[in-house]
């Protein structure tokens, strides 16, 4: 029997190619409900969310018994005490409290699917957003010259058959994490995956064929490669009704950029088009000004982040949860002291969230000392006690079975922290 993958890679793909009008109805019927006709068997998928702007880890997951923190943040410190007039933090383990905006994370934490790593960050102490993101996404904190992103290298190391959907970023532009030689896709909206000429499908088909030819012969390597990926992707998505997606378990995604992105990640996972790494972004974490506590900018962001992730997880349901690990990341944390404008400035360590059935959850991994000045980096910031590469490489190793740290994180040979099950 011809494997589906072989079938597709061989001439089979042409059957769905541009130039043949319409989609075979049996394919359309199969698309949403069943995996029967899917070209790729289920794969392990890593979903990464980059929180751009540097999340205040000390507000997301607060060491609420720390009196130094309380003193350093006269108006931003939140308590876990239930008797206060304000909404309390969610007490996770007697030491750390989850921001109430992230309430939906609680049950996943309790069921040990969600782990939190506190004090995570980069050994490079740059406090520039751009640089820190660049280092984290390239995976080489002291080497600016690294052209590729760590997730692109991860895709290469898995070395599975080429499908245009191996690495998909639900952003309008390609994130740094995806830079590199392995084909990857950036798209805001899956519905845009077509050559469109409204009211004239024949014209659209002809144009698509023309474009495919032209991009195939161009002397610009960048345009040629991207062109090829584009047309492969169009052909594959043609079979699916992406417009009328119905999430499982009556899940309703939040109408935010992140919610929308994760919804489309869910769609791609269920289509079995070969997705292995997905990427989405969450913005607005650069809270220099009026950060707020249980309400305000931070709370809104926290709500969006946790709400979108929880919706995604429930949508995955029992069928897919085993295959998916989700991890958040942010370029650095924020100052222990609040600044003069009700916010916090650029700091060092933050925290991140890892969700999945392979995760050793229910724990806040940390080496946090009391936040007295002498315990702070440069006397001001939560020091980095866990190199982000320890966590990223462990997740890649255990979930995606990539164990070549020399390629994934060149120049690094630290140890892992046991955040994933063995």
């Amino acid at each position, binding site marked *: 029997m011809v494997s589906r993958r072989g079938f597709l890679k061989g001439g089979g793909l042409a059957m769905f190619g541009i130039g043949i009008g319409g989609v075979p109805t049996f394919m359309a019927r199969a698309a949403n409900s069943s995996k029967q006709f899917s070209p790729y068997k289920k794969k392990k998928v890593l979903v990464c969310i980059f929180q751009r702007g540097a999340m205040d880890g000390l507000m997301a997951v607060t060491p609420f018994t720390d009196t130094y923190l309380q003193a350093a943040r006269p108006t931003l410190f939140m308590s876990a005490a239930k008797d206060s007039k304000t909404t309390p933090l969610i007490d996770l383990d007697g030491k750390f409290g989850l921001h109430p905006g992230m309430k939906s994370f609680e049950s996943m934490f309790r069921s040990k699917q969600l782990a939190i790593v506190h004090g995570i960050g980069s050994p490079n102490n740059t406090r*520039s957003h751009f640089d820190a993101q660049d280092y984290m996404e390239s995976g080489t904190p002291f080497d600016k010259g690294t052209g590729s992103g760590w997730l692109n290298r991860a895709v290469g190391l898995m070395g599975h058959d080429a499908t245009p959907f191996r690495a998909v970023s639900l952003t309008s532009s390609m994130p740094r994490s995806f830079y590199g030689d392995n084909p990857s896709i950036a798209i805001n909206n899956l519905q845009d995956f077509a*050559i469109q000429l409204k009211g004239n499908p024949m014209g659209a088909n002809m144009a698509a064929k023309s474009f495919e030819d032209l991009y195939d012969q161009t002397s610009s390597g*960048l*345009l040629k490669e991207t062109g090829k990926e584009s047309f492969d992707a*169009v052909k594959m998505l043609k079979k699916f009704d992406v417009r009328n997606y119905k999430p499982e378990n009556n899940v309703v995604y939040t109408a935010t950029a992140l919610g929308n992105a994760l919804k489309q990640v869910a769609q791609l996972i269920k289509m079995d088009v070969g997705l292995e790494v997905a990427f989405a972004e969450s913005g607005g974490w650069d809270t220099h000004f009026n950060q707020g506590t249980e309400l305000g900018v931070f709370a809104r962001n926290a709500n969006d982040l946790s709400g979108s992730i929880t919706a995604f997880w429930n949508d995955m349901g029992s069928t897919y949860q085993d295959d998916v690990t989700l991890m958040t990341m942010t370029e650095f944390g924020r100052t222990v002291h609040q600044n*003069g404008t009700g916010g916090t400035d650029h700091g060092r360590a933050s925290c991140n969230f890892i969700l999945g059935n392979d995760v050793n959850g229910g724990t806040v991994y940390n080496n946090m000392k009391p936040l007295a000045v002498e315990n702070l980096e440069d006397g001001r910031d939560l020091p980095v006690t866990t190199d982000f590469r320890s966590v990223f490489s462990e997740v890649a190793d255990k979930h995606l079975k990539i164990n070549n740290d020399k390629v994934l994180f060149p120049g690094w040979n630290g140890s892992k922290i046991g955040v994933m099950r063995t």
Partner: protein
Amino acid sequence: MQNRIRQVAKLLIFSASFFLLSFFQIPTYKQHFSFPYKKAGLTEREAAAHLLNRFTYGATPGQIDEVVNMGLEKWFEQQLNGTLADDSLNQKLSGYDALKLSNEQIANAFPKPGQILRMAVKDGKVDKDSVKTDKKEYREQLQAYMQQNNLRPQQELFRQFINQKVLRAAYSNNQLQEMLTDFWFNHFNVSITKNDCAQFIPDYERDVIRPNVFGKFENLLLGTAKSPAMLLYLDNFSSSGENTNASLQQNQKLRQMIPQKQEGMMTDSAQKNQLKKLQNAKKAQGLNENYAREVMELHTLGVDGGYTQQDVTQAARVLTGWTIYPMGDNGWGNAIKKVIEKFGEDKLSEHGFVHEGDFLFAINRHDNKEKTVLGKNFAANGGYEEGVQLLKMLAHHPSTAKFICKKIAVRFVSDNPPQSLIDKMAKTFTEKDGDIKEVLITMATAPEFWNKEVIRAKTKSPFELAISAVRALNVDIKQPYQIFVWADKMGQKMYFYQAPTGFPDKGQYWINTGALLNRMNFGLAIASQRIAGTKLDLLSLNNRHEPESATAALLTYGKLIMPERNLDETVKRLTPMLNDPELVKKINDAADKNTAPQTSMVNNGVVMNDPDSYRDDDGVGNKGGKGLKGLKKGNNTLQTVAGNNSMLSQVVGIIIGSPEFQRK
């Protein structure tokens, strides 16, 4: 006698020089540079095409001939002056009233949504509880209130601003000025996504960026540092330190005040609590490092320019007190107003305050102790001048020369410009006191600029692609906003880039699978007039000669749209398909069946002439292609495309979406 001879000689010399002068004045153009394109093996026409590719938003039909006839150097010199008449553009812009307003007038006429609500509640015109309960009633109340008080929605301001961007890029004769305005805006990026600074962005571009794009770098740096848009975008407006000066200490209370940022609508006690907390926080003094860091990392030295965290903190202290003068009737800067009242407006400078336009140096909030930045000592009590000195020092730092020149070369030459070119430019930058015009001349007269390797090596950004298509096809844009919406769809939402880095300037950033498909779709859409509010006449581009066949159309229009390029391979690839008569017939039939007669929506003035997309896009921060609905509705306004022409527009659409047209 001798005297006489001398006199005659003088006279002779005088008249001779007069003669010579007049001789030279009339026929020749004084040009002090020349382009070495011949050495690089380019013809004059190829060189003109390259110039237009790099220093304009794309050549218009026949423009290569114009440049060749005028002389390439003269054309460039003219562009460097940026003083060509722009009557037809000005005519198009004349209806945009908001673009003429000052920041203060804008603050009064276009308050932020939260501000309007607060005012309405305060005036008893809106019941604040209805915000929660009855959305419709509340909206009506609010609208009525806005009308009564001549308040206008901010989206309208942004829409006018965005429209002018599109129109200027497409139609200005001073193309280089527009390219540079775009470049420097992006270099000193501010973003509409940050609501606090958004309303001041039109003024920022108009008065701070555009007038300075050919001048000294230092002026741009100082101008941006003092502008409300930048002060708010990078938070410096709120950064304050302790002033130990005795005369100011009497105003201890006032010293502690920092400008009030308007709070959102407070509806319940938790929020009131919150507000109180925040107000307390404000009373504490606060250093904010955001601007100090970015001014070194992004605006001047570059991240490897040799500064430390210590320098950032010290620079932030130097810049404490740099803030915004209170403006508008709607409560902006109430706290500062009190400070000013206390000291007396006319006595401000006596106390060391500096008030220039919208800028205020509030000495009461300035850290007056000694500082050291990059090894330079700033003695105590330096006041406003130490900030100026700091910025001038940064503007003239050797790292800045390299960093800025590389960035200019990346924009105008190639994604990886040769170091030899950057060095030449940096030398000019240093020797000519940061004179941008001189740096551009050095760049354009360097052999590296004309090297065959860099010809067409740059990838157009989405906005550049859209505008270059408009220019190449002589499109008449009635609804500029639709061009913005398409650029967004292709990956570049103008004025909404959130990070202070501005849009990256690399082909790799723009070209990815999704964006590329949208570029192709854009080509098809614009050529077939399926973008609302665009008008074009493809036949007139070819003197109304209708091509005899699809292949002929490809040949003719390929040359018109992409002059001076080798299109042999393109033609060879497409010809077999274009010659299929069945296909051509089917396409024309389908087009005829689906095109509706043109219904004009362009009759109610310049500003609001695209009501569909106006409703669809709230102008601020809403991502996710919300505005794209406008495109779909826009299809109702399709113009009739006569039978044969649908094949022509199809061919032109393919040319616009082709890989060659993505390059410049």
